[in-house]
């Protein structure tokens, strides 16, 4: 018997394959390794950030700050690299520490002040972007041979596609994320919080530690996504990544997670991210849509995916009985 908890995940995967097939049917070129490689590289930062968002959403929370944290990270790295002679790796470490602590503080506020995550992370969103502005309003280019090195190292697929460092990094992050979420005590605790904080407390789940941990992870991964973004663009820009949090939330939910928490899969998020990427790619391949039709079509496709998912789940549950 198929385990019902995996149904949403399976449904999402099926839909992705189906959608890809449809795209392929319309634009045969969609199946080239180039497009596949691009799908990974182009969505790397979103994917990494979405892993963090998945943890947050699984626990029943939400993190609106990730887009801003990505922008902050980019600006911070760019400015530090410009002003000092530190090696990028050192700067990366530094910025990851900062963003993890930033997330942890938000977690602590959420837990100890008992304030809704939505508002706390909204303040975090303003703050992170605000700090990015103060560091530099200009967009700052990064020119460092280490960056060029990273950008030039990729695995070339037959057919000209590339698996870049950042694309691979995203896959690694997903892998680690899956293990943490589904294979560690911390992961179970995250799910527990999503099932209900009062109950978790009575069951002896370390709520404070877990909450702070979750937001620290989300901050950390947003920082990592920021690094990825900075590698992707070789620059830091305080207006970058506006609204990424919404894309990440959409990816997580399309991936089968419940926004109320307690149910979902990291792997589903990966598919969610790829679906979002696919929609973008499809629209660009089409290339005839005006600005407004682009928006409308994105909305329609989003709706279609969700409908298909619902339909598939319904069909599966009807059949199972």
């Amino acid at each position, binding site marked *: 018997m198929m385990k019902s908890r995996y149904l949403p995940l399976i449904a999402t995967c099926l839909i992705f394959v189906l959608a890809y097939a449809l795209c392929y049917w319309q634009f045969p070129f969609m199946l080239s390794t180039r497009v596949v490689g691009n799908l990974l590289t182009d969505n790397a930062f979103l994917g990494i950030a979405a892993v963090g968002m998945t943890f947050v959403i699984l626990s029943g929370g939400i993190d609106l700050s990730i887009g801003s944290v990505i922008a902050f990270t980019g600006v911070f790295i760019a400015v530090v690299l410009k002003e000092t002679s530190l090696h990028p790796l050192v700067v990366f470490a530094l910025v990851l520490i900062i963003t993890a602590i930033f997330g942890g503080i938000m977690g602590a506020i959420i837990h100890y002040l008992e304030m809704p995550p939505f508002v706390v992370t909204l303040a975090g969103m303003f703050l992170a972007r605000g700090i990015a502005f103060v560091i530099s309003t200009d*967009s*700052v280019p990064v020119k460092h041979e280490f960056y060029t090195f990273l950008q030039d190292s990729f695995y070339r697929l037959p057919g000209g596609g590339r698996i870049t460092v950042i694309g691979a990094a995203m896959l690694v992050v997903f892998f680690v994320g899956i293990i943490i979420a589904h294979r560690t005590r911390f992961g179970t605790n995250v799910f527990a919080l999503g099932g209900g904080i009062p109950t978790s407390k009575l069951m002896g789940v370390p709520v404070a530690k877990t909450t702070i941990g979750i937001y620290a992870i989300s901050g950390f991964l947003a920082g990592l996504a920021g690094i990825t973004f900075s590698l*992707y663009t070789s620059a830091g*820009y305080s*207006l*970058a990544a506006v609204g990424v949090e919404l894309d990440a939330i959409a990816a997580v939910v399309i991936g089968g997670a419940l926004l109320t928490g307690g149910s979902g899969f990291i792997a589903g998020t990966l598919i969610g991210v790829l679906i979002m990427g696919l929609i973008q790619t499809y629209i*660009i391949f089409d290339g005839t849509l005006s600005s407004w039709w682009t928006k409308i079509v994105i909305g329609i496709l989003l709706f279609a995916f969700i409908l298909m998912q619902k339909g598939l789940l319904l069909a599966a549950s009807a059949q199972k009985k």
Partner: protein
Amino acid sequence: GFSQIGSESGWRAAETTITLQQAKDRGIDLKFADAQQKQENQIKALRSFIAQGVDAIFVAPVVATGWDSVLKEVKEAGIPVILLDRTIDSSDDLYLTAVTSDFIFEGSVAGKWLVDAVDGKECSVVELQGTTGSAPAIERKEGFEQGLAGSKVSIIRSQTADFTRTKGKEVMESFLKAEGGGKNICALYAHNDDMAVGAIQAIKEAGLKPGSDILVVSIDAVPDIFKAMMAGEANATVELTPNMAGPAFDALDAFLKDGTLPPKWIQSESRLYTKDDDLQAIYDLKKDLGY
């Protein structure tokens, strides 16, 4: 392929219309990708253009930095790239040419006009900035300040109004309140016309006359500002032409035909319009361009 920033303003919409129009007129099959104001989407678009094997790429870059690696890929794929309306920080062998105006120059044109207009007198200016951090906001501010250099004209308040009318009105309202009901303000400089149009309404609602009590100068030259100028409510605007595509297509044609390398920078016009121009005629010309 044409990677457009988005459709955040009327000017942008006009640019898109004209580009599509030009392509159609020349019988070019143009793939249009709207990036919804996100650089990441533009990079994605560029990558897909490569994947689809287009013959040339136009980009209106949302931000100056961060294009190196993707443009290298484009170059490897042997596709010429032309930048529209904004330049980038990358080395110039990565693109064929850039058809842009110069934001700093526009700002300084506006600044010089104001210095002339007040004729050596003291003048306190309030400034409506574009979206914080965006290139036009930064450079038009810088250019304007250059234009004012050495004169008695000074900026007393400066706040962002995100390039929008609503914010332009709201911010102007607070400027008026903060500066003694507007008595201390001699001129308004807005980084785009939309904000100026909003601000003009605020000035009117505060019981002052825009255009005479408070001079209004802005940038872009969209049709609505001509209407305001005809009504005497605005004084000057610096044109940022939406027709970046025309010269770009010309350059591209030349290049594709016989490999003529265009200059690296084709500067578009930055004309100043004041009440001395034939406002009605220009308005009629522009009003159907999709602004």
